[in-house]
């Protein structure tokens, strides 16, 4: 009776925070069911205004001779987890944009490249209620803790990331949004593996997962128009032949795209009420003219990415910003362009079919999140809360994750081909500089679901700039945790817990 085991989510997200505790009340577990928004009982910050970390919880699921059996916990098996976290940003190449060979090295004058890599090495824990910390990593001789791992009472793995500490032991200045020599941050990523010994069986290695420990998610109710789930679904379609339905469901496929676009009104004044016409196509079927009017706004993913088109939606910048704007060695500065980032080809085809009337009208109202935790749902819930583009260089992970790295099955990276730190090494160092810079840049936004442009404060009908009061890269490094979190309040989404 052959068993196989897999770890889910295939990619988990553990977000950093500067609240230092690691007891269960000191953090919250990220979304585990698609469509859910986690609001900690006492908010996203502690009483001192420090941001709680969002943990990633990993579970083992078992199949016996191909039959799905369910979650495997410590009640039936001995489970040994091994996790490695690393931050290798400072030793990697400068970010120069995608579509071109990688740039020159960051910190090129440093000959001891290992001194730039925060690599505490793997940690292993077995059984329930275990714990280990990643506290031995160094950057230029300075200690940089990256977080810790725990097991809960059922033997599930809980990963906690870093504390939002970015710094420069040499007091180097912050000069650019992406490449700052002499600097480090404490985001990280790495492989998650497990050995499962079911009672009466020999130890079996579970199919491995990966964890990313990126910056906090300040706008949990706002989903990215192109999430990392969407981007990696397209990878699965293109590289693994993963099938998607030829006829989309309005409720499951079309509505989420429309709804995300509508929700952007809460994070950028540039949208404001301009997406009100989208309300007119809900509920379906709407008229052909109404559907076409929406579809015609969308950029075709087959269009050369650097070309300006009149199809301005989604209103977010392209991956190829460097080429369009003539920066980073890509020609001369060339402002006045607006090449936007398209939906994935699968998303675009959903909208194209819908516009043509080729969709299943299964509408009975907005879909409620499920109630059961499932293996695939764990992965989707983690990735739908991450940005799937533009990758310039991106929020949680880089274009390597979409365009380069190998997958053994949909959403599951081939860990044998990767090293800890690979998913975040191309991101800005420190992350705060890119996060400071990624505001609305006329005529498009960057990642308003990650970094809102404009928000509504409580009891106000007027937009205010979300990062008001932060005026420099250094301000973002020092005061990022004072930024507000967005929460649902009745029919509105408002800013709360701001302490700047």
């Amino acid at each position, binding site marked *: *009776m052959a068993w196989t085991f897999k770890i889910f989510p295939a990619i988990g997200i553990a977000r950093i925070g500067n609240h230092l505790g690691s007891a269960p009340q000191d953090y919250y577990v990220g979304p585990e069911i698609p469509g859910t928004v986690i609001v900690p009982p006492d908010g996203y910050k502690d009483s001192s205004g420090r941001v709680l970390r969002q943990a990633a919880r990993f579970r083992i699921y*078992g199949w*016996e*001779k191909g*039959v*799905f*059996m*369910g*979650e*495997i*916990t410590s*009640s*039936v098996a001995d489970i040994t987890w091994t996790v490695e976290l690393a931050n290798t940003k400072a030793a990697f190449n400068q970010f120069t944009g995608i579509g071109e060979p990688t740039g020159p090295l960051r910190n090129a004058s440093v000959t001891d490249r290992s001194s730039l890599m925060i690599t505490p090495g793997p940690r292993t824990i077995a059984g329930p209620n275990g714990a280990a910390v990643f506290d031995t990593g160094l950057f230029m001789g300075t200690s940089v803790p990256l977080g810790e791992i725990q097991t809960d009472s059922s033997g599930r793995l809980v990963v906690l990331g870093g504390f939002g500490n970015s710094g420069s032991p040499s007091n180097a200045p912050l000069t650019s949004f992406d490449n700052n020599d002499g600097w480090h941050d404490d985001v990280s990523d790495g492989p998650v593996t497990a050995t499962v010994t*079911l*009672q*009466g*069986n020999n130890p079996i290695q579970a199919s491995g997962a990966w964890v990313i420990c990126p910056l906090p998610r300040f706008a949990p109710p706002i989903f990215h128009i192109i999430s990392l789930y969407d981007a990696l679904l397209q990878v699965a379609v293109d590289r693994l032949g993963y099938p998607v339905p030829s006829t989309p469901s309005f409720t499951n496929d079309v509505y989420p795209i429309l709804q995300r676009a509508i929700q952007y009104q809460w994070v950028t004044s540039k949208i404001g009420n301009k997406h009100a016409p989208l309300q007119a196509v809900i509920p379906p079927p709407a008229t052909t003219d109404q559907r076409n009017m929406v579809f015609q706004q969308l950029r075709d993913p087959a269009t050369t990415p650097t070309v300006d088109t009149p199809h301005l939606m989604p209103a977010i910048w392209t991956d190829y910003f460097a080429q369009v704007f003539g920066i980073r060695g890509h020609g001369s500065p060339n402002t006045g362009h607006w090449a936007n980032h398209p939906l994935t080809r699968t998303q675009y085809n959903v909208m194209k079919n819908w516009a043509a009337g080729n969709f299943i009208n299964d509408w009975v109202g907005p879909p409620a999140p499920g*109630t*059961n935790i*499932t293996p695939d749902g764990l992965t989707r819930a983690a990735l739908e809360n991450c940005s799937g583009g533009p990758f310039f260089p991106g929020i949680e992970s880089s274009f390597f994750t979409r365009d380069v790295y190998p997958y053994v099955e949909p959403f599951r990276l081939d860990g044998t081909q990767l090293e800890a730190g690979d998913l975040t090494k191309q991101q800005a160092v420190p992350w705060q500089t890119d996060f400071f810079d990624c505001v609305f840049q006329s005529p498009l936004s960057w990642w308003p679901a990650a970094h809102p442009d404009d928000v509504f404060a409580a009891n106000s009908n007027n937009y205010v700039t979300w990062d008001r009061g932060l005026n420099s890269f250094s301000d973002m490094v020092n005061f990022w945790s004072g930024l507000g979190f967005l929460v649902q309040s009745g029919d509105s989404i408002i800013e709360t817990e701001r302490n700047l």
Partner: protein
Amino acid sequence: MPHLHSYLGGTFLPYLTQIHRGPKMFLDAIVAPHTPQALVLTAFSSFAEMIEIRGKIAAHPDIQRARADRECGEAQILITSADSLQFHAGPTRRRDGIFELRAYHAPAWRDRPPAAVNAAFRRAGIRPILTASAAGEHVPRFTFLVAFESLAVRQEAWGSLEADSEWSELEAKVSGASIYKLAPYSPLS
């Protein structure tokens, strides 16, 4: 889950015992497609009796209150025969070990498992305490509840069955399986 067991053992079972004398078994999932999960097995002599008892349960105010707090629940009707019920009660009650609810898709078996199935099970050391077919399904699906001393014994038993050439000829395919332990308040095992 403690709330669910409190309801099942403290509210549901006492009332069910008052109105129904048939077999009752309560199990707690340790490996199942959806967990946490509890399984309640109740046997009735007829559809009419089942509907009558279920109506009484649904009308009981304490149960209505408790069910209002439950997230979800689902029921499946299985058809069996009295001689297939091999439950233990009293001093012979199985207190340790595990129970597996295992379903087979087996069109070739038609209405009931052929005698060769029980023979193959016996050779592998598998002794179902319940054998049943799913009611109302147009493709034959058969469900067995099997008690094992441990997961290791279970592994060995199914391994022996898989290696049995006569079993292979019976063309049965596992369509689902869940593993349970006995709830402490279960009257039968």
